[in-house]
């Protein structure tokens, strides 16, 4: 009676399936920390003020125990001949572009993690190592990281870098908004060293207000766009400039946050390896049942 056995099979799989969903919902609650505090901090980067001294690059390395060299060596402006990206040796870099409107000075743009309000990396991380903290920073737990590099693929700004050189202990590397320093009440290293305060540190809401005021007061100096105010649902780091952001290698992004729907499903599937194990158990069970049935059928014959 094949019909009956199929009903049994469906019944059994439904019970096991329900079990898995139950498990995954319970684990999703203990998923990644994703706080969007109204008091979260941010940085306003005014590229019309930046002089391209690259002191921030040095300070960043110094604060993160990366080989930094001496500060004087950063005066070399030849590095601007090539466009650079942040990597495992430098969590922030400054690139130089041709002058924008009403200026004959080049535009210097500091690049680092934007610390999104709805971070795609947090969403993509299969082990929930990434988190958006109360102070606005997007950080990750190195001990939890399994090195899958999903965050690198998910990031709309392609910021997270991967340290390939340590085979046994691979690390994802990116700007952490100086989480350790700000916890102690210090400023992020780059903000502290900037000679011209092209980087203004403050509550994000206040920064948006300041940025709007600057555009309103100096319409000749800026284009009317605060990059990061709305992009991918808003970012903690925001930029002002005197030319279109697409000409400064900023990606053209919509206002919608990186998909958050997939987040709970994905975290549910992989959390603590319980769901995969149960899935395999289910498949194993089905295999055992069908094998047993075959045996029984053969016995009946």
């Amino acid at each position: 009676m094949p019909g009956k056995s199929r009903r049994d099979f469906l019944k059994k799989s439904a019970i096991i399936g329900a079990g898995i969903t139950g498990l995954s919902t319970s684990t999703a609650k203990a998923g990644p920390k994703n706080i969007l505090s109204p008091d979260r901090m941010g940085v306003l980067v005014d590229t019309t003020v930046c002089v391209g001294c690259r002191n921030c690059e040095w300070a960043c390395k110094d604060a993160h125990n990366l080989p930094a060299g001496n500060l004087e060596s950063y005066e070399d402006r030849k590095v601007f001949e090539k466009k650079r990206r942040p990597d495992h040796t430098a969590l922030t870099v400054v690139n130089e572009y041709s002058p924008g409107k009403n200026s004959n000075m080049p535009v210097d743009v500091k690049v680092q993690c934007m610390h999104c309000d709805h971070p795609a990396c947090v969403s993509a991380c299969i082990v929930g190592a990434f988190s958006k903290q109360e102070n606005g920073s997007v950080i990750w737990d190195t001990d939890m990281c399994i090195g899958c590099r999903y965050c690198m693929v998910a990031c709309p700004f392609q910021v997270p870098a991967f340290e390939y050189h340590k085979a046994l202990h691979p690390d994802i590397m990116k700007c952490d908004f100086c989480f350790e320093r700000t916890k102690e009440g210090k400023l992020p290293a780059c903000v502290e060293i900037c000679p011209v305060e092209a980087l203004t540190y403050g509550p994000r809401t206040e920064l948006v207000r300041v940025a709007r005021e600057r555009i309103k007061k100096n319409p000749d100096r800026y284009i009317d766009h605060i990059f990061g105010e709305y992009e991918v649902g808003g970012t903690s780091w925001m930029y002002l400039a005197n030319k279109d952001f697409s000409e400064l290698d900023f990606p053209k992004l919509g206002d919608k946050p990186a998909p958050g729907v997939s987040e709970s499903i994905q975290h549910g599937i992989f959390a603590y390896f319980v769901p995969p194990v149960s899935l395999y158990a289910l498949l194993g069970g089905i295999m055992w049942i069908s094998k047993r049935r075959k045996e029984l059928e053969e016995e009946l014959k």
Partner: protein
Amino acid sequence: MKKFNYLLTVLFLVTSVSAQQNIGKKHLQLNINCKTCHTCDVPTKNEPCLVTCPRERIATVYQKPEETPELIVINELVKRYSPVYFSHRIHAQMSAMGGGCEGCHHHNTTGPILKCNSCHEPNRKRENISLPDLKGAYHRQCMDCHREWSGETGCNSCHVPLKDYKPEKKEVIQKRYAGKEHPVILEPTKLVYETNSAKGKLVTFYHDDHSKKFGISCISCHKQESCSKCHGVNRVTDNKPIKVDTKNTFEEQHRNCISCHSKNEDCSKCHSDKVLAPFDHYKSTGWALNKYHINLSCAKCHGSKLPYKKVDNQCISCHQGWNNENFKHSVTGLQLDEMHSELSCEDCHLENNFAIKPSCTNCHDDYSYPKQKPGKVVGKK
């Protein structure tokens, strides 16, 4: 006793009030802004809230660069580097065409120069983030110009690292800037621009005519000039036309010109296919300027108001004090001989019209002006 006490009080009150009034009267006569000496809005005798001395020579934004301090030590934020010695006076001279004192001392009151830290907080971590902090404000003032004309953004061009700092450095620097001044800016005579306009590519601009003859001050055009205008690496020294390639609108590009010239003036007045000749008073008005008039600014005869008022060619239109008794003919470059000095003006200058050539034929058959002259030439016309 009570009465005596009462009297004393009244006396005290009267004297104190009158004393205050006396000071007040003096103040009024001097016509000084209160903020020059007082930091608060309502200074009283007990709390005059006076600014710190020396008060006798307080620098304001209306001072000449030469009257400002030669060297200023900036030592408010010393962590990594030694104090900065800023050659203030020479910078003040440089900024004459770049916004003057107010270029750096922005939003200053009419009173004394405000310290930068009265608005810009020394602490970067602060409540009010709408203004740059003190470190940012200092550096923006310096680096905006320095990076433009020298391309330098390195710290050590102004700073000496603390470890290399020697205290005697101040005297060395003081000596270096003692009496040093920015060289006098040489004015170009003529500038030729090659524009991208379809008709009349070349624009000839007679710079010294505008500054000397037309009496236009440097800063009425050169308001926000940066150092790189002269110190730039791309400074053109050959005599080729200066290329003007800009996306500016008509108004933006002609801003300085149309502040005097009408916007609707004939373009060919400045735009041409060849280099134009300078303004010639004779060609334009039919009245040549002699050696006395040639060096006058236009405003001297035509008034400073634009458009210039027309002046007729009668001498007494301007020289209103001249009459038969006091006029010395030698000012025209011709000293009349004894015979002619006795004559009345009209004898030679027909109908007292001094604009047309004097006539000799009234008296002489074989004499003609200017071949023969009624006296001695004392100066070149």
